[in-house]
């Protein structure tokens, strides 16, 4: 099926999970990545079970923070 990842078209297997997509995309430091699907924020506890659908738009956002 076709989805959009970080603004770019991608073809992935039907029903792929968020966790599997993160692994396939070789996302660095996945423990610090926030995922949105169609602008909805996905809780990291749901990465293993949340599946994607045709046409979904996925974004990976890195945690950005620091301190003095």
């Amino acid at each position, binding site marked *: 099926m076709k989805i959009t990842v970080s603004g770019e078209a991608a073809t992935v297997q039907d029903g792929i999970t968020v966790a599997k997509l993160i692994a396939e995309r070789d996302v*660095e430091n996945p423990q610090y990545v926030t995922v949105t699907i169609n602008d909805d924020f996905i809780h990291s506890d749901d990465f293993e079970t949340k599946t994607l659908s045709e046409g979904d738009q996925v*974004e990976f*956002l*890195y*945690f*950005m*923070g*620091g*301190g*003095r």
Partner: protein
Amino acid sequence: MSDSKTVSLTAQQFDEMVAHAKACLPEEACGLLGGREEGDTKIVTHIYNVENIDHTNEHFSMAPKDQLAAVKQMRAAGEVPLGNWHSHPETPSRPSNEDKRLAYDSKASYLILSLMDADQPVLHSFHIEGDQAEKEMLIVE
């Protein structure tokens, strides 16, 4: 560290950054930088202010909803993400240990604006990789 770049921004962008940082005092302020790369130079074309959801003078965490909005705006404008910035209200313009520990993207430039002397803000850009930070050339004109 060979990935160090030159970062270029306008005086107006610098002023915008300072104004936002001062408006956020006593809290740290933060934001994202969008623009383009020409050779080894990152040319900032837009500064995106992002909410610091920590709301303290000692830490910052960027609001994911603001990050998402900024990423989409960058994409719509044909920009690429160049890095981020945050303020140090009471400390110098240098990466703290926490800044280095939480710098996950070695391709990003990390700009730190010190307001220790609010009348003389100091801005430096850093390339951070692991626990190593290297000052990048920064052009403000």
